[in-house]
């Protein structure tokens, strides 16, 4: 496939669904009109962990309009459980609540008012229990167990709060230790933060004949379908998942949360039910894993890395969700994009009585990268080597087997780093009070995957595409329309993309790991090829020539006599009197590799280099990002405006956890800063003074036209880049996030009162 004449792919085609979004007609789950729907309100107890002694719903049931108060008693015994990794999450809490916000009852009522009034009148007799909410508490010898050991009968870790331990690495660490001239060690922590999508999670369910319909802002409709089918003991064909485009998700809407509860409710009541979470409830539903990671790296005097030894503890929540997978995957690549002869990585996911952590943009990598890149910055200072130079000396090049047992480096990573360094003006003089920092981040894309697509070329040349991806803002809908427009010669506004309905849209495994442009993109490409093949046959029949002598590509039919016809022309003549359409089916599969610790090798890597320049107000601790440069290795920018939107969005989200976001707890393990007033995310006034994003495009990705997946890369290394810049400006070193003004002030003050250690 050549670049010449490419008109649609690679252009900033208008966003599919853009018109709906700017006119307010885009319908999210909470906007859907639902006749006769019952409103659901959750009931929780004000404790980090509690034993439920009794639930008295009588007063609630007496409220006019309240139709049901559902508790564990209304569900099968034993309580049905679900979860993508461990089936540990109960449909509703039974016997014990395991985190602040774990629902004990659900009130269903005719109006929101009566649901709210009912919920306020549900009397829960509960006894607060000792909760473990930190890594140390959870690992203490006398720590209460978060999870019932009976749920993991064959697991040697079942008697501890360690959910799983992951070990990986290569080479001979002991031997490498003696090779090191300089060893740099430190421990870095990453806070609990939450996705804070502007659309709070919303769910609905309704009986549908002998089956059920479930609406959800879910990223994985097919996965949800399996969960509901299993819990309700229905065939997949009787479980219809309707998944409107989510209003932002960032991983927090990947896996089932309250859909099972609503499904049981709808079936029991014989009526549609809808639950829209409040923003506070979303903070109590999803978050990122917090972590404490110790990194010990050995270098030769010239900066060559000889070993890395990483020990990571991630604090996951009360139910496993997909959290352990984030630990496994994030740790697998913890050594980063570097060539290091000896590496040992140990990572543990540790259960706690806190909000269940789940997937969140970066999927376990930002925590590791914060530690490893900060450690590298420290090493640069100790060795007296420039931080860019130190990285270049150790960065893998395209094709290097930098991660034994996995895909070799698939990009020109040094080029990406150099581009970032150039753009920030690395090495040029800085004004007083300013500092610069740089870091790189690596994440594996999907390790397995399966996407199907059906494409229908209609009689007039317009197209309908079925793709089960979730468009949550990353612009999948647009990308798919661009590919089809490119391949079948349809104007892009003649392409309709149908998503989010398991009854009509074929299977897609999931929308995660920045996979969809590659996996679904390739499936759609395959479907288009299928159509092109059929058009070849059609053209051969019409023109009376041999099929093998015809080429159909990029909207055109090229005949052996050098005539070039638009697809439309052949299509209309070929379909003839009966009309009809040409249907293409495509599949793209990345098969599992059972011997691989992650289940498969990486389909591609996301690689990003971020460079920032900051100024620090030493009196107040305010950090101002003067310039932020983010460069991602994307293979091919299928839609430059969307690539930019995602990268800059990821960069600003990274600044959020770097400078201001964190859950704050009280002594009893309850969250103090629920909601938007005291959980701070960046506003339009908190942006870098200058933001520049750039993409490296070498066409070296496995996706359509050489694309790789992107959207998480630009978040990965924001924190270490900013911390390095703050250090450059002030000398203060940070091991914990966020760098709030108070914390920076405190670090500067402590620094002043402490003499510099020799050789520091």
């Amino acid at each position, binding site marked *: 496939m050549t670049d010449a004449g490419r008109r649609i792919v690679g252009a900033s085609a208008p966003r599919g669904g853009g018109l709906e979004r700017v006119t307010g007609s885009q319908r999210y789950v909470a906007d859907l009109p639902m006749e006769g729907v019952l409103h659901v309100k959750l009931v929780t107890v004000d404790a980090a962990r509690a034993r439920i002694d009794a639930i008295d719903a009588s007063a609630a049931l007496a409220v006019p309009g309240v139709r049901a108060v559902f508790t564990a008693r209304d569900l099968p015994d034993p309580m049905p459980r679900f979860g993508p990794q461990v089936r540990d999450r109960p449909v509703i809490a039974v016997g014990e609540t395991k985190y602040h916000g774990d629902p004990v009852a659900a009130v269903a009522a005719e109006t929101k*008012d009566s649901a*709210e009034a009912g919920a306020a009148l549900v009397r829960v007799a509960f006894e607060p229990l000792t909760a473990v909410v930190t890594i140390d508490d959870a690992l203490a010898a006398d720590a209460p167990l978060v999870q019932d050991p009976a749920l993991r009968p064959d697991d040697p870790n079942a008697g501890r709060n360690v959910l799983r331990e992951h070990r990986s690495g290569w080479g001979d660490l002991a031997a490498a230790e003696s090779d090191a001239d300089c060893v740099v060690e430190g421990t870095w922590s990453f806070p609990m933060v939450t996705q804070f999508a502007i659309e709070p999670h919303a769910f609905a369910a309704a009986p549908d004949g002998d089956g059920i319909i479930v609406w959800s802002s879910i990223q994985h409709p097919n996965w949800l379908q399996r969960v509901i089918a299993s819990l309700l003991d229905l065939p997949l064909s009787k479980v219809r998942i309707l998944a409107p485009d989510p209003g932002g998700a960032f991983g927090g809407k990947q896996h089932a949360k309250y859909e099972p509860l609503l499904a049981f409710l709808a079936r029991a009541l014989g009526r549609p039910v809808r639950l829209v979470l409040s923003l506070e409830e979303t903070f109590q539903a999803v978050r990122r894993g917090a972590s404490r990671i110790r990194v010990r790296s050995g270098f030769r005097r010239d900066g060559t890395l000889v070993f890395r030894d990483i020990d990571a503890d991630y604090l996951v929540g009360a139910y496993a969700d997909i959290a352990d997978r984030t630990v496994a995957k994030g740790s697998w690549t913890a050594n980063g994009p570097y060539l290091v002869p000896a590496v040992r990585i140990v990572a543990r996911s540790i259960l706690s009585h806190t909000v269940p952590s789940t997937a969140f943009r970066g999927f376990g990598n930002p925590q590791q990268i914060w530690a490893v890149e900060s450690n590298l910055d420290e090493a640069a200072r100790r060795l007296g080597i420039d931080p860019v130079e130190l990285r270049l000396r150790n960065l893998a090049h395209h094709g290097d087997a930098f991660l034994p047992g996995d895909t070799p480096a698939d990009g020109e990573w040094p080029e990406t780093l150099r581009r970032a360094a150039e753009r920030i003006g690395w090495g040029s003089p800085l004004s007083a009070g300013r500092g610069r920092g740089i870091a790189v981040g690596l994440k594996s894309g999907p390790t397995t995957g399966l996407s199907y697509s059906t494409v229908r070329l209609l009689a007039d040349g317009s197209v309908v595409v079925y793709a089960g991806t979730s468009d949550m803002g990353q612009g999948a809908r647009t990308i798919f329309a661009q590919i089809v427009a490119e391949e079948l010669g349809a104007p892009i506004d003649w392409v309709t993309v149908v998503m989010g309905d398991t009854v009509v849209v074929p299977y897609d495994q999931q929308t995660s790991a920045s996979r969809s442009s590659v996996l679904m993109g390739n499936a759609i490409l395959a479907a288009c090829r299928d159509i092109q093949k059929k058009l070849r046959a059609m053209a051969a029949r019409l023109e009376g020539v041999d099929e093998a002598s015809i080429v159909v590509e990029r909207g055109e039919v090229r005949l052996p006599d050098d005539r070039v016809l638009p697809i439309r022309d052949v299509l209309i003549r070929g379909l003839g009197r009966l009309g009809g359409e040409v249907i293409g089916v495509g599949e793209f599969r990345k098969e599992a590799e059972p011997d691989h610790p992650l289940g498969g090798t990486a389909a591609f890597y996301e690689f990003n280099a971020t460079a920032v320049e900051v100024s620090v107000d030493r*009196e*107040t601790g305010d950090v101002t990002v003067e310039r932020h440069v983010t460069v991602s290795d994307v293979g091919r920018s299928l839609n430059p405006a969307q690539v930019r939107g995602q990268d800059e969005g990821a960069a600003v989200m990274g600044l959020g956890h770097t*400078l*201001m976001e964190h859950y*704050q707890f009280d002594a009893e393990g309850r969250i*103090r*800063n629920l909601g938007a*007033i*005291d959980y*701070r995310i*960046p*506003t*339009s*006034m*908190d942006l870098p003074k200058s933001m520049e994003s750039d993409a490296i495009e070498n066409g070296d990705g496995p996706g359509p036209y050489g694309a790789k997946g992107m959207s998480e890369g630009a978040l990965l290394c924001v924190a270490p880049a900013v911390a390095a810049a703050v250090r450059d400006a002030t000398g203060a070193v940070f091991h914990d996030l966020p760098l*709030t*003004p*108070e914390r920076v*002030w*405190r670090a500067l*003050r402590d620094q002043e009162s402490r003499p510099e250690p020799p050789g520091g």
Partner: protein
Amino acid sequence: MRPFAYERPTAIRDVVGLLGVHGPAARLLAGGTDLIIRLRDGSIRPDVVVDVKRVLDLSDAISVETDRLVIGARTVMTDIGAHPVVRRDFAALADAAMVVGSAQIRNRATLAGNLCNASPAADTAPGLLVFGAVVIVVGPTGERRIPLDDFFVRSGVTSLGPGEMVAAIELPLPAVPRGSAHVRRTRRRGHDLASVTLAAIVEADGVARIAYGSVGPRPLRGAVTADALLDANLGDEARDRLLNQLFAGASPSPTSLRASPDYRLAMLRVLARRAIDAARARLEAGPG
């Protein structure tokens, strides 16, 4: 939200009457930017909400009289921040009004409501305190004039008596040329509740006054005038002594989510210096 009844009187007399009938079971609704939040979280549970926005004898504007500026109870922050006389003669108030929340909040939040909410962190309070604001209160016994410093009691509590409401806030026009400024500490540059909020006046006759908030149960005036802070030759020790005196009333909460006590106390000093510098620069720049 727990249900309540809604009244929308059109005269002060009727508001006072409703307050008389319902007592503490009635709450006044002006901009709603504090009240609605508290209604929703259940921290207040009135039976009646009295909307004062159509009360015709409550002004929604600013009037300039011979010796005073009168800000009507229905005046919103946006209009206060944009008013030319406020910007010229009461710059610290204009500064503060324009950082209360976002544009959407400022278009609704009233100054009167901000004061009645009596948050220790109210950004408008320090400026009003240094300007010597007086709160005009009306109630069953007629009209009262309460100096703002006597109006605040503690967090959420004012000296309004039963059946009383704020009708206006008066600011004496400056007698001598002066500059003023408001500064504050927040957790981000975007809208936020202040961890420390402070205003300073510097007058042509060499007097400097400071008031501050969010470091105790209510906004406070500096315990002494800060004139000596204007002295360029002031040594570090002397300045520290002066600042300690100035902020003797500060008692930041040890359990605050937003900032620790030592940070707040340190920032008081930093902000005092910056506010005075800014106020002095404005004095020197002259009016307009």
